[in-house]
């Protein structure tokens, strides 16, 4: 065990901050928040180096969101080479089970111990190099993946922090509370709470509908004395950017970032990132 820990700590010794994106509930936008967080950290400085690790092993969404779902991970003498979303600049590294699958429709049917092994390899065998931020996108719940992460990252605990994502409805807030209890149980500092999918602006008449209610996140943050990082409305442009897949340019430019910067969410997220850094 001591040996495994050094493998992870050695590999992550040049990673300055590790941010876990958590939420008890599924489909509240963990992956989209992780992607946006990574993109905004990436643009925060012309030299910022960011990594995204997708530990949602049975439902990886990150590759699709960055339009790299047709790419693969390479093996090198110095470990696995992550996929770089920004091509030759190589400042935005992505690692996900989705990049290891031959066929994107293949299911990964794994019980806990195998998931645990994969997560350990993601942390100890991937050539992350120097990173300012490593954003870790997690699956739903508080189970194997989360416990494994905390266990393997124990050696770098001082650099860990978490962001909790929720949607405004009661059902999601309840799961977010469970998630908060988890962070307290494992002594993980929480940077703050983001309320996602808060309101939807009708593209036709501009009326705001609270598709999944509103305000619940701010209320929870106040009650639990968490920093409230902000609300993000449902943004169809963002859905299109993250769902669009490969932009077909193929010339090594980062087209997805350009399209993202034009969305309304990008502006809102900038403020969130200022609070986080």
């Amino acid at each position, binding site marked *: 065990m001591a040996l495994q820990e050094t493998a992870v700590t050695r590999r992550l010794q040049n990673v300055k901050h590790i941010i876990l994106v958590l939420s008890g*509930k599924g489909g509240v936008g963990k992956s989209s928040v992780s992607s946006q967080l990574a993109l905004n950290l990436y643009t925060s400085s012309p030299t910022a180096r960011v990594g995204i690790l997708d530990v949602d092993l049975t439902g990886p969404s990150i590759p699709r969101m960055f339009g790299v779902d047709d790419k693969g991970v390479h093996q090198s003498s110095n470990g696995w080479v992550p996929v770089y979303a920004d091509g030759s600049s190589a400042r935005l590294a992505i690692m996900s089970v989705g990049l290891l699958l031959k066929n994107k429709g293949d299911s990964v049917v794994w019980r806990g111990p195998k998931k645990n092994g994969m997560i350990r390899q993601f942390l100890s065998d991937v050539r992350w190099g120097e990173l300012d931020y490593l954003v870790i996108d997690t699956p739903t719940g508080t189970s*194997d993946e989360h*416990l494994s992460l905390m266990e393997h990252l124990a050696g770098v605990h001082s650099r860990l922090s978490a962001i909790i994502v929720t949607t405004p409805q009661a059902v999601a807030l309840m799961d977010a509370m469970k998630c908060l209890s988890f962070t307290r149980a494992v002594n993980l500092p929480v940077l703050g709470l983001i309320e996602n999918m808060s309101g939807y602006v*009708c593209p036709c008449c501009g009326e705001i509908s609270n598709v999944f209610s509103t305000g619940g996140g701010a209320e929870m943050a106040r009650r639990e004395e968490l920093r409230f990082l902000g609300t993000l409305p449902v943004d169809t442009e963002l859905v299109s950017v993250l769902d669009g897949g490969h932009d077909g340019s193929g010339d090594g430019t980062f087209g997805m970032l350009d399209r993202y910067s034009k969305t309304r969410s990008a502006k809102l997220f900038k403020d969130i990132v200022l609070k986080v850094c």
Partner: protein
Amino acid sequence: MVVVQSPMAIPDPKSIPSNAPEHCPGTESELAGKSDACAGCDNQEICASGATKLPDPSLPFLKQRMSGVKRKILILSGKGGVGKSTFTAQLGWAFAADEDTQTGIMDVDICGPSIPTILGIASEQVHSSSSGWSPVYVQDNMAVMSVGFMLPTSKDAIMWRGPKKNGLISQFLKDVDWGDLDYLLVDTPPGTSDEHLSIVQYLKESGIDGAVLITTPQEVALQDVRREIDFCRKVGIRILGLVENMSGFVCPGCKTESQIFKPSTGGAKRLAEETGIELLGAVPLDPRIGKSADYGVSFLDEYPDSPATTAYLDIIDSRYPSPSTIN
């Protein structure tokens, strides 16, 4: 003479003794009893003897308990937050509207149980009797079991690895006094992992009638559903059909329909065509669905004139003949 049996203790999930070491490879694993982590574990001898790899001794009990259940339907989806629990609840309510139909709902989402809230019974508790744990009844023909009923407060997180989750799922099937049921609906968490493998394994002998797959229109969700289809085919579960949730949104202001989650790759319709799976229907996004779930009331009963209600009922009617026609 009445034989009095001592009631089975209801476990307190927060205090279930975990005498397994942290790195337990799992009792069914090849390494059971032989891995480094097993050294010093109380169960090492049992695991190493191979006894744990034999068929689960609880299977006969489980089969007996399930023999009174006519139809077992899984509600699956690779993706989270697409409306599995909401659909399960609506389906349950629709079945239970016929007072001769006995319906059971089992929530195997151990880390994020939503069923108790959606059904408006979050403050209930499970009681034990000589015949097992009594499920919570929403109405006299609708029984519900969820780990949510066993937690002291809704804030408590269950931080369990796979084997403990599997143990509880097995108990839900074997120790709960379900009685005779026409339908048992199983609401699952997202993904294709422990919970899914376990439920399939435990119900193999009793037979699963099929699975309903829930998705939303965008490609990110469809990708996960493709994986779930692959899973169903691997383990041999019949897929009853596909339901597309959150399909279009009608603005309450101007009544124009817009697509929040754009079907950039053709949505569930294309997926259904590609895979040869029947598309049961598409349910539009209605903010009142989420609100009904938060308040624990039946959306179908509260808003019978919503287009979403019509969509739900069409799906349910087309797929599930009433039990009177079954008999």
